[in-house]
């Protein structure tokens, strides 16, 4: 296999693995956050405004980890610098 094939295989494989592993951690973290928020809502319903707002802020923080992984996957698929270099070389030949 020549270089361009290696680059393509590595990019595609890494893109899939990145988003897969990224979403596992995020799912576990957000599930735990929401579970604790629900139990504290059940204990103190009159603080629901604060709890809900803090829950959303916390969820956004955890979500940003998954979004970082998603952006890396998108870059590897759509804006891959190594692949554009290979294409430019192939077009120049």
């Amino acid at each position, binding site marked *: 296999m020549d270089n361009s094939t290696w680059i393509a295989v590595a990019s595609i494989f890494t893109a899939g693995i990145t988003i897969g592993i990224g979403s596992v951690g995020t799912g576990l973290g957000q599930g735990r956050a929401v579970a604790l928020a629900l139990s504290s809502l059940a204990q103190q319903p009159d603080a629901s*405004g*604060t709890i809900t*707002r803090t829950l*959303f*802020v916390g969820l*956004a*923080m955890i*979500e*940003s980890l998954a*979004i*970082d992984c*998603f*952006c890396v996957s*998108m870059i590897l698929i*759509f*804006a891959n610098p190594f692949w554009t270099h290979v294409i430019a070389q192939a077009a120049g030949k």
Partner: protein
Amino acid sequence: MNITPDQHVFWRHGWVNLNETIVITWLMMLGMAIAAKLMTGRLRTEGSVSRWQAALEIIVTMITSQLEAVGLNHARKYLPFLGTLFLFVALSCLGSAIPGFHPPTSSLSTTAALAGCVFVSVPLFGIQDQGLWRYLKTYSEPTIIMLPFNIIGEFSRTLALAMRLFGNMMSGTLIVAILITITPLLFPVVMTALGLLTGMVQAYIFFILAAVYIAAATRPRTRDTPNG
């Protein structure tokens, strides 16, 4: 395939290029300014108010109450900046209901600019509120060892603000674009609706995080007394 509206360039001259992001942002700014001017044409404090004034009052009171709940004293002072932040991001998400509209926040340039505004505004409001020396001393709280971590934290949370908004908006539009090539009409519509929901949530989160950062920089600090 275009993942951001940056790649669609209308006009280029040297290094200046007019891409779709800039055009749509300026159109939105024009639209929001004209709408605000028209809606606040004849404000009344008593009697029957027009429905536009009532709508604006609802929006302003809701934003102010959220700012006060976060812990910002003198919420009115920060209302113009934070309220405009929320309205811009919310409208740029809601606009994806209009065909042919690509949200400017799905481009990293716009979200980086908005996060840069928040990054500049936090020390600005902090120094305005507390004075330069007391604000700089907050970077060494709780101990001086935390100084590099606090500084790095400032940069990293600005970066996270930009990435979070960009990732959410870009993924929403990208998924709809990909689904259109696979199963037209049903799933793209559902995903657009989901994109509207997540966009509004992200607008609220951007606004609340900016408010929390400013509140952390301007919160009143108790004076240390010898007896604690």
